[in-house]
């Protein structure tokens, strides 16, 4: 789960990382009041999880009270990737001389946290071209030992960072590593970390992503963010322990396992079709989570047909069948369900479903997907 900037900053502030004064506002009147409290000039930053905020005009410096209403109204009208802006972070504007990038990221292949530092921080840092040219140094961290001061020193020395900043860098790096560990983050990123005119380091922007597989143990802290950052479907998915991904197509899909999700997507793409949603029920799903997943697909008005592609290993086909029946008994579906059910307990699963008029059966992924696409296109004509 990606956190919004204001959420990430509240965590970093709590952890003792120096940040400019800021507060959240949800309408233009609030923006004006908060700006007066903080003192001009201020930066208004649209709060969103969508990329491209800066280019769309979602980050603006305001010098005085005369412009503030106009600018904030403009930001509240922005729509990024179909998502409106609900809040603006009002932040004290800052003069600075140098921008660094400092982050704890995760190297999945090595299975370790990574400390990453660059002198070329700033808004364009993460764009592919500038990222390639920038001098970035990094250290893999053994999680059983933790981040050590010498590792930070080595990076600072290799970038020839002025030693008067070393102590501050060390403190900030240690603190973001502590945040990474405490909140089960996959990423804690400060871009950029700037030198103020008083030789103080300040974090101007912050990104934190929380590991979805650890949310269960992050408790109430995460719950407050879930409602702000997740759609209804995503929250349902978390509750029932399935993966939900929304797409811009019109076929609702349920599969077990990521590989089968990819195979189903691949088959759809080969026919120039796209799903409306892909739900991965994982291995060994219970009938309750299967039933809830199917419900999500049935109520989704974007899809005209539902595809269920199951090859059970740990997933038991009889349990899948039970889940499907639970849903079908509760409400009569308004669209057909195309299903392929194979693997562990496949026969008993199929047996219990065979008489149901809402279901059409297939033997392979290809046959299943081809039929769904054909049906969906026939329906449109």
């Amino acid at each position, binding site marked *: 789960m990606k956190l919004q900037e204001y959420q990430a900053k509240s965590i970093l502030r709590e952890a003792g990382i120096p940040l400019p004064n800021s507060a959240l506002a949800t309408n233009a009147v609030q923006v004006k009041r908060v700006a007066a409290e903080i003192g001009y000039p201020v930066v208004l930053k649209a709060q969103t999880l969508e990329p491209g905020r800066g280019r769309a005009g979602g980050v603006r410096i305001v010098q005085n009270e005369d412009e503030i209403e106009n600018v904030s109204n403009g930001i509240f009208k922005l729509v990024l990737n179909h998502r409106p802006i609900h809040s603006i972070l009002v932040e004290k504007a800052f003069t600075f001389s140098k921008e660094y990038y400092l982050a704890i990221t995760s190297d999945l292949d090595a*299975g370790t946290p990574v400390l990453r530092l660059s002198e070329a921080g700033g808004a364009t840092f993460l764009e592919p071209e500038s990222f390639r040219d920038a001098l970035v140094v990094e250290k893999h961290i053994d999680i059983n030992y933790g981040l050590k001061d010498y590792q930070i020193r080595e990076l600072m020395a290799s970038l020839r960072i002025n030693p008067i900043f070393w102590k501050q860098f060390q403190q900030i790096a240690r603190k973001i590593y502590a945040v990474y560990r405490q909140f089960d983050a996959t990423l804690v990123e400060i871009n950029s970390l700037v030198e103020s005119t008083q030789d103080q380091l300040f974090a101007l922007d912050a990104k934190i992503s929380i590991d979805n597989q650890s949310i269960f143990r992050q408790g109430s802290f995460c719950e407050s963010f879930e409602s702000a950052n997740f759609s209804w479907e995503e929250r349902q998915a978390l509750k029932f322990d399935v993966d939900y*991904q929304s797409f811009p197509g019109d076929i609702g899909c349920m599969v077990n396992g990521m590989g089968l999700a990819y195979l189903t997507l691949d088959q759809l793409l080969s026919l120039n079709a796209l799903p409306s949603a892909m739900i991965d029920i994982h291995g060994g799903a219970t009938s309750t989570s299967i039933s809830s997943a199917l419900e999500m697909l049935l109520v989704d008005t974007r899809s005209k047909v539902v595809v269920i592609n199951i*090859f059970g290993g740990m997933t038991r086909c009889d349990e899948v069948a039970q889940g499907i029946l639970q849903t079908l008994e509760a409400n009569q579906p308004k669209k057909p369900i195309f299903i392929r059910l194979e693997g*562990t307990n496949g026969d008993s699963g199929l047996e219990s479903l065979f008489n149901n008029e809402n279901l059409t059966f297939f033997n392979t992924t290809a046959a299943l997907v081809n039929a769904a696409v054909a049906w969906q296109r026939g329906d449109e004509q």
Partner: protein
Amino acid sequence: MSILINADSRIMVQGITGRRGRFHSLQMLKSGSQIVGGTSPGRGGEWCFEGRLPIFDTVRECVEATNADVSVIFVPPHATADAILESIDNGIKTIISITGSIPLQDMMIVKSALKNSDSILVGPNSPGVLVPGIANAGIFPSDITLQGNVGVVSRSGTLCYEVLDTLKQSGIGVSTAVGIGDDPIIGIDFLTCLELFEFDPHTDKIVMIGGPGGDNELKAASYISENVTKPVIAYVVGERFATSLLRPFFSKSGMLSLDSLGKKTSGLVEAGVLIADKLSEIPTLINK
């Protein structure tokens, strides 16, 4: 005759009394695998499956009593890292985690511990290791394979079943099938399995099934071009996602590094690997 496990493997199950553990332990028993016991903390001293298997409180007790050297893990995700570390600590050689969706930082702790041990971890989120007719250490559906000389290694469990099913229908048998696991951080990778297959006298050809995310397939490609003499056939699902509308949806999740998307196939071709565009092409390429 196989890699990672064989007819002499003494397999134990961690979490043998749970819903999934109990069901699949019985499947493994039925398939004739040498299951020697299992753990379920607090239920040590009991027996399961009508007295066929002893239950222990700890891996230590199970190893002492049964000489288990392979452990298959079914405990819930929040307890899985602990279960893997318990197996490492007690000298289990091959640890297979069926459980998936393990907290990322738990797996980082496990990876660090593995470096200082002789244990091999398969998974998490693995379907296990299957040696047709000999042993099934995991959750592979029964009866989807024939015995033979093709080694199969896959990141995804379900795709592995698809491939095994396709091979069986073409009458092609398998020496060992390994699912290395679908979690973001896993134990052994393609490279290790290719190395094991290369030295396995009962494997003549190797099928590798990859997918999006990371660069494991590309590392395997450079290993193949220098070290593997046996023919390798690869199927990489999702290569066309690179140019499709789907790309933003994958990069948004942030977990999947897409740098190598669309480049895996060409990397493997350069290494001399035969590429199947569809699952159904795999048998043809094997018989080539």
